[in-house]
Structures are given as structure tokens and as C-alpha cells.
């Protein structure tokens, strides 16, 4: 199937070239980070995790969200998702690759990273995170590749793939639960110490991941003519709406406990995120996220609006932006501010940090482009292409 990567329009090659340049450029910045250490970043003694780990967290969610296509297809025999399920699986592959890279660029001593396997520490949630992420990557590569090959040969996928698919459904929930446990089991970080963290992670993943998938598929439809299918889009949008409602609901639950109990530890991080003692830039973003979340719901809840060809992408984009700010920025900053002495240390990612993060995203985009190119090539041959 790899031969599908070798032929394409000029724009395809230009896109790959662009990504490679981006990767090379940010690779240079990463080399500088290797030499000068994480002093290049905006992180500090008080805010010791930043953009890298928050992006890791966000993209674990994107990876897990493939299950929103797989579960209806295999548990409920919802046939309409069959055409685009491969894109979800391949997006999960790209997302897990990005997660791994985000961890690597965050390490102070990356050449020692295999210590996690050489000296496994079963008491550490990170150990399990490593296990579930590599497992999930392997599952999606195997399942994606095998089913796509079966489609190319116009046969049914082999029977042994079914148990793997069921396993991958459970596994998807596990990766984001374990990622939430990284945070939710830490004493003394008020914003994270909440039992609803894993549920909140999953709900936010199950709306933002499929929303990102749909946006990318709309782009693919414009570029190649591949149609994911009207009914499938409609169903997936419904799933997104439900997940987003649950996501917003869970956040409101946090707000209730924090502010009705009046316990400073619970309320302060949230007050800080939104009211920004001393004018923290993140408050503007958090208010924007809240506004975008509500606006996206306003556009997605009425069926007449969400089925509109122009409104749907805009609403999904708002949703992705809102959930990204919540999990990709607010989560980490809220966890570290105030710090362990109830003081405020500002965190602002530096240019180098953002460049390296963009480089990791470019690697993800490259993996995604190549995998999707292959899938589109196969779909084109099997005439399962335009709606």
C-alpha cells in the first residue's frame, strides 16, 4: 500500500516539503534546547510543566477519540461510519506519535528516557501511561493497516482483527483515564485533585477529537472529493454535541464544588484562571474559551443550524478552540498557580518552546498526511469515494 504515497498532485508534494522544512527548523531549535536545557522555555521552579505536557495531554484525548467511530461501528453495527473509521484510527496513530514526542522534548535528560523501561516503577502513573500509549499505538497501527489492506483487496478483514478492535475500544478509554490519573492523584495540587478529572478528560476528548477529525475530513473533501457521507457526519456531529454538553456540565460541577464549599484551595485556581490576579494573560483566553464553548453549543444544539454546510465547520472550530484552551492551557496553568506556597508565578511559553511544539505538531501532521494519503488512495480504487 506504500506505493499510494508516491503519486499525488503537486500540492501534495509541496505540503510534505513544507512540513519537512517546519520539522527541520524546529529541530534546530530543539538541538539548541538540548544544549542549553529547558532554560529556553518559560517553565520555572514553580511552574515545572508547561506547553509540552499540556499538548501531550490534549493529544492523548485526540488519540482516544477514535473510539467514537469504532464503538458505534463494532458494538452497535452502525455501518455508516465504516467509510471514515480508518481516518479516525490513523488520526489516533498520528496523535500518539505526537504525545510520545511531546514527552521526549519535555525531558531534561532525553537520552535516559528508556530508564522508564529499564527501571520500571509500578507505583508511578507515568509507567502505566507509557504502557497504554505504546499499546494503543500498536493496536491502531495493526487494526488500521489490516482493515485498509482488506479494503484494498476487496475482502473482509481477517477474523483475528475483531478481538483487537474490541480491545482497542476499552484501551481508548484507558489511555485518557490513565493520563488524567497523572494529575488527579497528586496531593496538594488543588485544581487537579478531583475525582471527576478522568471523566472530564474523556468528555472533552470525545467532543474535541471527533470535531477535529470532521474539520480535517471537510478539508480532505474539498481537496480530493472524498465524501465521509452525509449520514455519518450527522451522527458524528450528534455524538460531538452530547459529549460537549457533558463536558460543559462536568466543568460546571467543578465550579459548584469549588465555590459553594468556599474552600480556598478549590476555588482559588479557578478564580485565578478567570480573574487573573495581577493580570495573567491566561484569563483572557479562559473567558474566550467559555464564550466559544457556549457559542459552539448554541450553533450545534439546534439541528437546523448544525446541519448547515457553512455553520457546522465554524461551530466545530469554536469547539476545538474552546476545549484546547481548557485542556491545552488552563489545565496546567491552573494546576501550578497558585504554587505550593499559595503564591503566583506567571508562566508564559517562550518562542522557542512554541516553535518546538509546532515542530512536534508538524511531525504529527506529516504522519497523518502520509497515512491518510494511503487510505484515500485505497478508497479511490475501491470506488468507495465520492458521496
Amino acid at each position, binding site marked *: 500500500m506504500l506505493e499510494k504515497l508516491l503519486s499525488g498532485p503537486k500540492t501534495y508534494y509541496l505540503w510534505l516539503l513544507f512540513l519537512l522544512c517546519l520539522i527541520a527548523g524546529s529541530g534546530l531549535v530543539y538541538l539548541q534546547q538540548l544544549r*542549553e*536545557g*529547558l*532554560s529556553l*522555555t518559560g*517553565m*520555572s*521552579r*514553580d*511552574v*515545572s*510543566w508547561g506547553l509540552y505536557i499540556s499538548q501531550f495531554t490534549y493529544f492523548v484525548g485526540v488519540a482516544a477519540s477514535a473510539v467514537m467511530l469504532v464503538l458505534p461501528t463494532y458494538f452497535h453495527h452502525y455501518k455508516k461510519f465504516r467509510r471514515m473509521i480508518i481516518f479516525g484510527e490513523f488520526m489516533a496513530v498520528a496523535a500518539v506519535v505526537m504525545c510520545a514526542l511531546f*514527552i521526549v522534548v*519535555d*525531558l*531534561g*535528560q*532525553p537520552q*535516559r*528516557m*528508556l*530508564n*522508564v*523501561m*529499564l*527501571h520500571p*516503577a509500578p*507505583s*508511578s*502513573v*507515568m*509507567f502505566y501511561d*507509557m504502557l497504554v500509549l505504546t499499546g494503543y499505538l500498536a493496536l491502531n497501527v495493526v487494526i488500521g493497516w489490516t482493515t485498509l489492506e482488506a479494503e484494498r483487496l476487496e475482502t473482509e478483514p481477517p477474523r483475528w482483527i475483531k478481538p483487537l478492535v474490541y480491545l482497542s475500544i476499552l484501551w481508548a478509554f484507558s489511555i485518557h483515564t490513565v493520563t488524567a490519573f*497523572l*494529575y488527579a*492523584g*497528586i*496531593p*496538594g*495540587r488543588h485544581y487537579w485533585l478531583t475525582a471527576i478529572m478522568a471523566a472530564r478528560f474523556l468528555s472533552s476528548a470525545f467532543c474535541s477529537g471527533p470535531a477535529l477529525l470532521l474539520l480535517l475530513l471537510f478539508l480532505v473533501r474539498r481537496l480530493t472529493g472524498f465524501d465521509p457521507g452525509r449520514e455519518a457526519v450527522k451522527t458524528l456531529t450528534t455524538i460531538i454535541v452530547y459529549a460537549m454538553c457533558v463536558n460543559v456540565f462536568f466543568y460546571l460541577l467543578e465550579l459548584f464544588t469549588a465555590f459553594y464549599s468556599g474552600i480556598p484551595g478549590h476555588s482559588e485556581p479557578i478564580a485565578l484562571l478567570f480573574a487573573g490576579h495581577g493580570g495573567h494573560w491566561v484569563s483572557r483566553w479562559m473567558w474566550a474559551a467559555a464564550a466559544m464553548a457556549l457559542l459552539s453549543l448554541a450553533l450545534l444544539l439546534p439541528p437546523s443550524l448544525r446541519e448547515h454546510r457553512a455553520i457546522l465547520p465554524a461551530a466545530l472550530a469554536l469547539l476545538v478552540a474552546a476545549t484546547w484552551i481548557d485542556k491545552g492551557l488552563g489545565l496546567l496553568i491552573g*494546576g*501550578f498557580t497558585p*504554587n*505550593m*506556597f*499559595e*503564591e503566583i*508565578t506567571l508562566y508564559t511559553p517562550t518562542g522557542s518552546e512554541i516553535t518546538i511544539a509546532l515542530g512536534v505538531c508538524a511531525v504529527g501532521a506529516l504522519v497523518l498526511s502520509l497515512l491518510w494519503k494511503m487510505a484515500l488512495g485505497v478508497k479511490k480504487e475501491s470506488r468507495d469515494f465520492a458521496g
Partner: protein
Amino acid sequence: MNRRGFIKAAGLSAFALIGGAAPFDEALAGIAPGRYGRNEKALRAKRWGMVVKTREFRRPEDYAFLADVCRKEHNVPRIDGPQNVKWLWHDTFARVFPDAVNDYPDERTRSSVFPLLCNHCDNPPCVRVCPTGATYKTEDGIVAIDYHRCIGCRFCMAGCPYGARSFNFKDPRLFLPDPPPNPAFPTRMIGVVEKCNFCAERLAVGRMPACVEASDGRILFGDLEDPESGPRRALAANYSIRRKPSLGTRPGVYYII
């Protein structure tokens, strides 16, 4: 076997080789033909602990002096800004004991500062979260770091409720004289986490921790499980508190207020 099958099998076995060969390094332990043991002079305890008689400290400079002793003893670099490295330092009551803040504190509580260092907890979250075992608890209750093994993931810094840990954002040698102040003790390298080690290297040769020695009896150090030890006798005779007791970490550093 067709060509495809061969390539698949070759790839899998190469993967297994790389993945499987690595852990055998550990099995090579037991290289030295001799025997290991404690130094005869080594101080021993079931559980090391510290008691700070804060009433006997008058001014912030008293603590700053001890922090300097600690810096010199362990080659702790002095770095300005938020990416700094600290083993022992001091701060106001409200920051050291944020759970115990009083709206109308007495004059001494309001104006005094208190020392901060690693609490060497009985139930340390940093040890729990460390993915490589680089941070561990020794038999006698010291929470230590193996700087050789630390991968610099900083999970322990997120995990520590006391802000006791510092990450080497920069190469610490750039901020130390050459040779470093204490040539008998190593420095750290860029990209690892460090903190107070209760002077394990001094206890091993029969000496009290550097700050304790320099404090003229204002900081007590000894076995918390021995009712006759200096710290225990002081705790029995005075009201004392620990930092953030509600978190269940059970710190080994007590403050007589």
C-alpha cells in the same frame, strides 16, 4: 516463507532483540568480589527527623547563614530568577504554613520567617510518582535522588506538595566557581531534579547535617523513633507543627512555634 513474510519476521525479531536485550544489564550486578557495609562511624537511626526551634531564631539572616552553609556543602548553584535551585531557604509564616493562616496573628508569627527544606516524608508523593525509581526512600527515612537515573520528567516536582524540589534548567557548573566550593561532593548536571538529602553523605561518616551543625543547637536532628533522642525530647516538651499535615505525607521536619 515468501519475501513478505520474511521481511515481517525479520522486522519483528529485530524489534524483539532491541526490546529484550536491554534489561539484562541489571543482571550483571555483583561485579565486585568484596563485601559492602556501613562505615563504622556512620550515624544510625530508624527514622531520621529534624526539629527546628523557631523561637530561637531572631532574624532572616540566621537562616540565610545556614542556607549558605548548605550551598557550600553541596555545591548548590546560586541562580537568579524563577529557574533557581534551592535546598534550604526561608519564607514568611503564611507561605510556609498556608493551611494555618490566622487573620490576626501575633507579632512574632507575623514578622518572623521560617526555614524550608525537603520534609523527607514518611509517605512521599515524589517517590510514588517517579517513573524510574530515581527518587527513593532509604531504610532510615531519607528521601534521596539518584541523579544518575533521573530523566528530568519533573513529575516529582508536580507531586511534591512542599515545593522542595528544583530542576536544573541550566548547567549548574556555569553558576559555580571552578573548582566548586566542596570538592569532595559532586555537583549536579543539567536536566535533573535536585533537593536536600538530609546530608546522607555526612551521616555516613558520623557527622551531623551541615545546617544542624552550624545552627548551634537551634536545629535538632536525630531518630524520631527513639523517645530519648534530642528531637523527640524537644517534641515532648513543646508545641510543634508540620507543614500541610492534612495531605497525609507525614513530614519528618517539625517546627516548634
